C-alpha cells in the first residue's frame, strides 16, 4: 500500500489546468493523458454523485468551487473524508491569501499558488494544516520578493 498523493490538479470546466502538482514520476504524455482523463471523469458528475471517483487503480477526491475543480489523486484504501477536508483547508487558505480568490487570481499568480501548495503539501503528504501558520509563512515569503 502506498499512501501518498499522486497528484493535485486544479482545472476549470473547460479543461484548462490552473495547477498541476505531481508527486510521482510520469512522462509528459502520461501527464497530459491523466489531465484529460481526470477532466473527462470529473466534469460529467453533478450534485447527486459522491465526491469520489474510482480512476484507473487509484481514486480521485474532488470538489467543485465555482468554476474550478480541485482534484487530489490518492490510493484506493485512503481516507476519502480526510482528503475532502484537506481540499477545503487548502481552498480556505487560497481564499484568505488572495482576498476572496477567483480564477483569475490563480492565473496571474500561478507561481504563488505553487508556493501555497508547497507550504501545505510535501512529498505527497499533507504537511501543514494550520491556516494561520501557513498564511504567516506566505506573508514572510512575499516580503522577500
Amino acid at each position: 500500500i502506498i499512501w501518498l498523493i499522486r497528484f493535485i490538479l486544479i482545472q476549470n470546466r473547460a479543461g484548462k489546468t490552473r495547477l498541476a502538482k505531481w508527486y510521482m514520476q510520469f512522462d509528459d504524455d502520461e501527464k497530459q493523458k491523466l489531465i484529460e482523463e481526470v477532466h473527462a471523469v470529473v466534469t460529467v458528475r453533478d450534485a447527486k454523485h459522491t465526491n469520489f471517483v474510482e480512476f484507473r487503480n487509484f481514486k480521485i477526491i474532488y470538489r467543485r468551487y465555482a468554476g474550478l475543480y480541485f482534484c487530489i489523486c490518492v490510493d484506493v484504501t485512503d481516507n476519502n473524508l480526510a482528503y475532502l477536508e484537506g481540499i477545503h483547508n487548502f481552498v480556505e487558505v487560497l481564499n484568505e491569501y488572495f482576498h476572496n480568490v477567483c480564477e483569475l487570481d490563480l492565473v496571474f499568480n500561478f507561481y504563488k499558488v505553487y508556493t501555497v501548495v508547497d507550504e501545505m503539501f510535501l512529498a505527497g503528504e499533507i504537511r501543514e494544516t494550520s491556516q494561520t501558520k501557513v498564511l504567516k509563512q506566505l506573508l514572510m515569503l512575499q516580503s522577500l520578493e
Partner: protein
Amino acid sequence: MPAPIRLRELIRTIRTARTQAEEREMIQKECAAIRSSFREEDNTYRCRNVAKLLYMHMLGYPAHFGQLECLKLIASQKFTDKRIGYLGAMLLLDERQDVHLLMTNCIKNDLNHSTQYVQGLALCTLGCMGSSEMCRDLAGEVEKLLKTSNSYLRKKAALCAVHVIRKVPELMEMFLPATKNLLSEKNHGVLHTSVVLLTEMCERSPDMLAHFRKLVPQLVRILKNLIMSGYSPEHDVSGISDPFLQVRILRLLRILGKSDDDSSEAMNDILAQVATNTETSKNVGNAILYETVLTIMDIKSESGLRVLAINILGRFLLNNDKNIRYVALTSLLKTVQTDHNAVQRHRSTIVDCLKDLDVSIKRRAMELSFALVNGNNIRGMMKELLYFLDSCDPEFKADCASGVFLAAEKYGTDSLTSLHVTAVLSCVLAGSYVRDDSVPNLIQLITNSVEMHAYTVQRLYKALLDDISQQPLVQVASWCIGEYGDLLVSGQCEEEEPIQDEVLDVLEGLLVSNLSTPVTRGYALTAIMKLSTRFSSVNRIKKVVSIYGSSIDVELQQRAVEYNALFKKYDHMRPALLERMPIMEKTATNGPTEIVQTNGETEPSAVEPKHPPPVTQPANQVRTPYSGSYSEQDSSAVTTQFSHDIITFPPSVFQTFQLQLLSPSSNVVPALNQGTVTQVIRVLNPQKQQLRMRIKLTYTHKGSPVQDLAEVNNFPPQSWQ
C-alpha cells in the same frame, strides 16, 4: 534590446487570443524572444523570462529549452531567482533528464543556507522530485535538518525524509536516531509530519515496526490530549482540534496494533473514546470516525469495540451526505465476512441504498445485499433485489442476474421457487445480461419448479420469436422447449398457441442461423430430438436429425449420428431416454456443464459418524467388498454395499455410460461395522462396454473431512454384456 515584457503583460495578451491558432502565434513569438534573451546570458531578466516560460508550459506548450536556465536561477543568490528556479525545476525537470543531477550541488548548498526559506525551498524540491541518486547524496543533510530546533524546517525535513525512504529504502536506518524524540514535540506541525515519517518507516520494515511498538502509549496520550483539550484556534476545524493529526495518529496506531495483542489492548480505550466522543454533525468528525472504524477493524480489538464500529458505519448509512454513505458501504463490504451478524442488523438500511442516485453507491449496496442474503431473509431480499434488477442500469444487470441465480440456488426453498423463476425469467428476457455460466443454474432452477414449466416454456418461446441473438437466452429457451414442448402445444397456453410445426420451425431456424454458436446449435438439435417423444411429427424430426449426421461441426455430427441410431436400433429405448428430467438436487455451484450427457447427479450430504470409530483402524483405508446383484432389464441395476464408516458420493463412470444415482439408504454409517448403507446406482450401458467404476469418497470422520479414492473393476461380465 528592449526589456522583455512582464509576466502579467504576457498573460493578459495571451488571454486576448480568440483562437487556438492566434494563441499559438503569440506563444511562438514570445518563445523566440525569450530564447534570444537566454542566449545573451542576461541575469536581470532571467527570472522574468523563466516565469513566462513556465506559464506557457502550463498552457501545454513545450519549454525544455528553459531547463538549464532554471539551474542558473537556482544557483543565483537572490531569493526571487531561486524561487522561480526551483519551481521551474519541479515543473520542467524530472528524473529522466541527466540535467537534474546538476541540481544536486545547488541543493546541497541551499540546504545549509543561512536563510530558512532557502533551506525550505531546497527541502521542498528534494522532497517532491528528488531522484534516487540525489536522495542518496543528500540524505545526510536531510537527517541533519531533522534534528534542528527550527520547527519550520523540521516539518519539511521529516517529509523530505519520507520521500528519501520511498526512493532508497536502504537509507531508512540512517533516520532512526533522529526519530527518538519526535513524538515529544509540542508543535503540531512537527508532530504531524513525524507521525507520517514513523508511519512510512513502520510500513516498509517489520523491524522498524517492532521497534516502534513501544510508542503506542505515547501516541495514545497525544490523541487523548487532542480530544480532551479545549479550543485551540490554530488547528481547529469546526470545533475539532487538529483532525488531520488525529487521523494520522489513528492510522499509525492501526499499523502498530495490527497483529499484536498487547498493542491492540492498549488502544482499546482510546478508540472507544474517540468513537463515542467525536462530533458527527460535520464531515470533519466523520472523517475521524471513519479512520477510527478502519483501525478498529484492522487490529485485534475486542468484540464490543467491533460492534461499536459497525454501528458507526450503520449510522453513516443514514447520513444525508452521500459521501459518507459511500464510505460506509465500502467498509461494510470489507467486514461483512468477518462480522456478518453485526452487519445483518443494518440490512434494511443497506437495501434502501439500492435506490440511491449515485451509481457507485448502488453498486456497493448491491454487492453488500448479496453478501447478506441468507435462509431467513431470502424472501424479503429477493423482492428488493428483483425490483432493483428490473429498474437498474444495464451495467448492473449481468452481475445482478448472476447474484440472483446464486442466491436462489443457495437458499431458495420449494415455496419460493416460483417467485424465483418468475424473477429470473424476467432478467433472462431482459436480454444478454445473463452470463454464460448462469445457463446451467437457470436450467436447474426451472427444472425444479415443476408448476412453472408451462408458463416458463411459453414465455421463453415468445422471447425466441422476437430475438435469437442472445445466446444464453436461446440456449435456455431451446432446452425448455425440448423438455416441455408438449406443454407448449397442449392447450395450456394463455395466449395463442403454436402448433408443432411452428415450434419445429423455430428450432430448425436456430440450427441454421448465423447468430447461433456451436453450443447453441447443440442445444437446438437435442431439443428437436426430445420433441420426437412429445410431438407427433416424428418423421420430420427424423429427417432433420439425419441431415445433420453429415454436418461439418463434429459435435453436431456426433449427436445427430447418435440420435439417428436411437431412431433405428434403439427405438425401444427412446421414450425412456428422452423422458422428462427429474428434479435435480442442489449440486456444487458449478453445476452440470454438459446437461445432455448425464441424467442428473445427486450428491449425498456428508456424514457424521455417530460413535467414534475404533482408533486402531486408520480412517483412510476403505475396503469395498463388492457384492453385486444384478437383474436382467434394459438397464442394469447394480447394488453395491459398503461396510465402513463412510457413505457414497458421486461415483464417476466413464463417459460411455449414463448414470442414475438414487438416494442412499441412510446418511450415517454406524461405527464398528455395526451396519451398512446401501445405494442403488442405475447404469445405462447401450454400447455394452465393460463396467468400471471409480469412486471418490468424501466424509467426515471425527469431525474432520476426509477424501478417498477407489476403483471397482470386478463387475461380473453378465452385468454388462
